[in-house]
């Protein structure tokens, strides 16, 4: 009888993952549509649905009887912020799965290679230059440019240092991000009393995001997710290490490079738009891996959904409870930090047992 158990469990776990995915998708929909009505101006749930439906379908008649102001608050202020949060959460969690797998390190996250530090450097530079010369350099675009520059620098350094393998990439990431950190400190000093806007940007926030931010994040995250999902069975095998993965028929160099580029682009766009939102990319894949499955074919989409749910939820906490005073990046790090300690202690325990 024990024989049947493992096979049954295997099939059941697939089913469980599928159901959990459906539940998460439903929960995200409810969370978004429900919380968009909450805030300084409260709206009823039917009104919210009417506004969203009316705007999406272009059928303005259903909006009849709802105040202009309410429509503007929901459609122009709250909804883009919440949707942006969902995409960024999904993107960061997906990038987390990618980086942990290709770096073969469950403690890696989207920021391990210094892409976030590069973005923060770019943003600080743009903020500083705008202030000093009264110009209007786009902060997200500059941040994006510098995060991609970081990716190029990190891959170039690790290729020169012996190839795109985990240890080289991590070391190169540390080197590059240390240099950028020093640069950021220097700019903070130069900024003098206006240092606040740099500090606030780096902390990571979804406040005052618009549809144009969504337009930047959504396509990259969606395309990134689709492509990532296509090669997830290769990613599973990659977790076994270089030579074993190749012996199972995976072109490891190509796969690693492709996922490196994908994960980096997703991260770069997310960070450029919202600043450094910590721990989503680390915690989400981990939590799901330990409670549901390590199989990336399911872990990847589930992480995206769970990341979206978590960041939306966290942002609503900051928006509704602290009136947006606490940047969401601080909240996720405050909650994620202790979880990181838990992972670390648990991991050490399993190493010792060997």
């Amino acid at each position, binding site marked *: 009888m024990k*024989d049947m158990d493992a*096979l049954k469990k295997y099939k059941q776990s697939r089913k469980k993952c599928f159901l959990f995915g459906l539940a998460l998708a439903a929960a995200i929909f409810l969370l978004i549509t429900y919380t968009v009505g909450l805030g300084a101006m409260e709206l009823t749930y039917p009104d919210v649905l009417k506004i969203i439906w009316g705007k999406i379908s272009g059928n303005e008649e259903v909006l009849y009887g709802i105040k202009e102001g309410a429509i503007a608050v929901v459609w122009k202020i709250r909804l883009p912020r919440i949707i942006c949060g969902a995409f960024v959460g999904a993107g960061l969690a997906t990038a987390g799965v990618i980086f942990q797998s290709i770096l073969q390190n*469950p403690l890696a996250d989207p920021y391990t290679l210094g892409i976030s530090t590069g973005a923060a450097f770019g943003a600080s530079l743009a903020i500083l230059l705008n202030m000093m010369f009264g110009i209007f350099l786009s902060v997200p675009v500059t941040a994006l440019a510098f995060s991609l520059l970081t990716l190029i620098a990190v891959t170039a350094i690790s290729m020169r240092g012996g190839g795109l393998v985990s240890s080289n990439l991590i070391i190169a990431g540390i080197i590059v991000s240390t240099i950028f950190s020093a640069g950021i400190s220097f700019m903070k000093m130069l900024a003098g009393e206006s240092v606040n806007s740099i500090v606030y940007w780096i902390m990571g926030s979804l406040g005052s995001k618009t549809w144009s931010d969504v337009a930047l994040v959504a396509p990259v995250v969606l395309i990134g997710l689709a492509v990532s999902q296509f090669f997830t*069975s290769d990613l*599973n095998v990659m977790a076994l290490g270089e*030579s074993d993965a190749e012996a199972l*028929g995976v072109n490891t160099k190509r796969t690693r490079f492709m996922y490196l580029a994908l994960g980096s682009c997703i991260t770069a766009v997310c960070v450029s738009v919202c600043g450094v939102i910590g721990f989503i990319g680390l915690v989400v894949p981990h939590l799901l891996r330990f409670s549901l499955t390590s*199989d990336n074919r399911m872990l990847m989409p589930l992480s995206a959904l769970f990341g979206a749910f978590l960041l939306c939820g966290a942002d609503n906490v900051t928006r509704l409870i602290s009136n947006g005073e606490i940047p969401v990046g601080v909240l996720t790090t405050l909650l994620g930090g202790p979880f990181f300690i838990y992972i670390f202690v648990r991991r050490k325990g399993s190493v010792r047992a060997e």
Partner: protein
Amino acid sequence: MLNSPLLEAKNVSFSYGKDKVLSDVSLVVNRGEYLSIVGMNGSGKTTLLSLLSGHLRPDKGAVFLNGRNLNSISVRERARQIALVSQSRQMNFPFTCLELVLMGLHPHSERFETVSDEQLEKAREIMESTDVWRFADKPITEISGGERQRVVLSRALMQNPSLLLLDEAVSELDIAAKISMMKLLLQQVRKTGMSVVSIHHDLTTVFRFSDRVAALKLGSLAENGTPEKLMTKEFFKDVFSVDAEILSNKGFIVCDNI
């Protein structure tokens, strides 16, 4: 090409930078034989195996699989024929043992193809034969080294290769598990015509279970033959620089006067 050998290394040499690891090694692997590779640490055994698997490309010479140059065969096609159990102990993610064994299907399955009931049944059969079915649903990160070796071997069998390359794949097994694993492998070799090339440090295992033994010394092929003929007093002196007493057809005793 029916009579051609399954795998043939012709005059292969390999260097890591300036370090010459293998020079001018030629080796034939026949269908349905168990070939053991022995030699001292650093004699080039693992490098030779990496060349045979196609993971490394020889600087000089070439490796042929069924008469085709290994370099001209795609990674995926190669993986349908050659399975490898490396020394890598890397396992950072809590895949279950069953999931790990099912990864052996990777080179044979299409993207998004789900595992069929027959394949699951096959996995169960293999895992029962290697005695790891008992903990099939346990995370691979939570089992012992010897258990892990048996899981990885099961994965290699799941891959259904015509050539199985083993790099000290039974080194952590207890004596009973090792004997039953070796018997299982030999049975596969006899039954399916699969060939095995295996690196061993345990010369007793080599003596008892190999059809043929190849010995490497400082990156060159020193000896090559059946264990009974090959493993003589001179062999131990030449390949391992130790004295040994040979018990005819029963084995040997290595003296400790090093």
